[in-house]
């Protein structure tokens, strides 16, 4: 008789592989930097990739796993950026790594509070209110920042210590990804996913759907705030117009393109979309057009049976070359 056996709760081998990859990627970048192959320009692109990764992975929590469309992720990034920058500029005397870390945490927490303020009323309603409210929220934040002279207004907020390095950005990418992955594989994560699958069944199974919607939304806002802080301390100057609707859509496109609710997909899509325009500088004026076309394309063809067959084949291929495949007992 075949005895049934479940997969381990956390696959140790897989965990080691991921840790190995994290270390190797970091080592490669460091080696290339000290060899002078990664110059300031490439370093900048890498940091941008890191910032976008944090934004995309966090948005994936609400739009991918929770299944709620939000259109104002850049708004949370803005709050994080300005809050972190304000802290750094006000408390210049605190020694460096601490000041930066505290600034980022403050940015994250402020964004999270903003997330709660708009999420609590919006997520209580059933339907697509969240998309509309977050869209409005993003624009309102931008307008408020424009009108605040104390943080530079439309001229931009200048003189932020430029302390972001690839290392610090990379560390926060890892923290974000690990957090989301571990959260998703827990009772909280299952609750969040069940909401996107079927709200009614989820509630009938005892899930407080309002609580979990707010939780996912608040965590996403927190990490967007962190990303904002990293961005502010990389640029040294921030302007409200950077955090507009276009930025929100850019993040959303990466989430959708990566396949909602998939971390690996999101990472690949982010890297591709961040780096491609840099490679194709001459085409950069078509960037927005490209986003629109890709987004429409994905929506049109995602459920096309031909595409699904292709995806299935790709998955089977991946499974075949997967070194961690479980050996079936005879």
């Amino acid at each position, binding site marked *: 008789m075949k005895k049934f056996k479940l997969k381990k709760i956390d696959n140790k081998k897989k965990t080691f592989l991921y840790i190995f990859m994290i270390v190797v990627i970091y080592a490669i970048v460091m080696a290339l930097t000290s060899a002078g192959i990664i110059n300031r320009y490439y370093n900048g692109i890498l940091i941008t990739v890191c910032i976008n990764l944090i934004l995309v992975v966090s948005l994936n929590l609400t739009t991918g796993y929770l299944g709620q469309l939000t259109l104002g992720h850049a708004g949370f990034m803005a709050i994080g950026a300005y809050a972190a920058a304000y802290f750094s500029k006000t408390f210049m005397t605190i020694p460096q790594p601490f000041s930066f870390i505290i600034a980022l945490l403050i940015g994250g927490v402020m964004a999270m509070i903003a997330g709660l303020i708009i999420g609590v009323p919006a997520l209580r309603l059933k339907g697509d209110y969240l998309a509309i409210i977050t869209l409005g929220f993003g624009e309102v934040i931008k307008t408020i920042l424009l009108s605040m002279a104390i943080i530079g207004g439309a001229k931009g907020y200048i003189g932020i210590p430029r302390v972001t390095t690839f290392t610090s950005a990379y560390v926060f990418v890892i923290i974000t990804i690990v957090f989301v992955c571990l959260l998703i594989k827990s*009772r909280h994560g299952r609750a969040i996913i069940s909401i996107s699958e079927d709200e*009614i069944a989820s509630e009938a199974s005892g899930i407080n759907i309002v609580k979990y919607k707010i939780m996912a939304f608040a965590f996403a806002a927190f990490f967007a705030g962190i990303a904002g802080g990293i961005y502010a301390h990389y640029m040294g100057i921030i302007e409200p117009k950077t955090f507009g609707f276009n930025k929100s859509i850019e993040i959303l496109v990466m989430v959708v393109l990566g396949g909602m609710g998939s971390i690996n997909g999101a990472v690949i899509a982010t890297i591709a979309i961040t780096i491609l325009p840099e490679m194709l500088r001459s085409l950069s004026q078509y960037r927005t057009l490209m986003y629109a076309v890709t987004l429409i394309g994905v929506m049109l063809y995602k459920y096309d049976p031909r595409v699904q067959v292709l995806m299935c084949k790709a998955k089977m291929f991946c499974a075949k070359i997967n070194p961690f495949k479980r050996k079936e007992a005879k």
Partner: protein
Amino acid sequence: MNVLKISNLGINFGGLRAVDNFNLEINEGELVGLIGPNGAGKTTVFNMLTGVYAPTDGTLQLGGVKYNGKTTYQIANMGIARTFQNIRLFKNCTVLDNVKVAMHDTYRYSVIDAVFRLPKYYRLEKQMNEKAIELLKIFSLEDYAESKASSLPYGKQRELEIVRALATNPKLLLLDEPAAGMNPNETKELMNTIKKVRDEFKIAILLIEHDMKLVKGICEKITVLNYGCVLAEGDVETVLSNKSVISAYLGD
């Protein structure tokens, strides 16, 4: 002691009185049938019992405690679990995860436990897995534990919904047409399993069903609804031979 007591329950949808003056008492371990022609209001009764619809009037009591106005998830955690007429599984999740979602309230650990993978996380996840497999075994679904729920054949999906409902640890289980779309063999098997579930878990079951063989086979008493009103109630033989019940089903 009665598990559920429904008194004078009614609901209006605009001008439509979908359910009117509905009374029902279910005792511990009882298996009760709710039958009636299409559109009679059976599913609406379930929706009111589980807080999906707010009744226009009447009171609902679970174990002697009035629970009108509680939300769906609170009612689920108080001990009323249900299945749906049109299967509502978490399709893209595994069979195991479908069951584990419903164990959310019983096995509690915090976000901190989860993201730092503290011992409590592993301990409770392991317990959950064991319990879930135990429940899946009732319907011999354990071999499918790691398959996607949507990949199950139709009959198995219906059974998985029952398992998921049982995973909330209910006192009362509501089944909305559990045998719909099943062939006679599957229905027979399902009948035995429902009885077994009742005996093993010592829970009360209220089921909506059109298949009279199933109803006659397992229900101890039945209530007949027609146009939102109770047409007859009592033990199965008497009710099914009732003239007005026959004419409601066959037309005049």
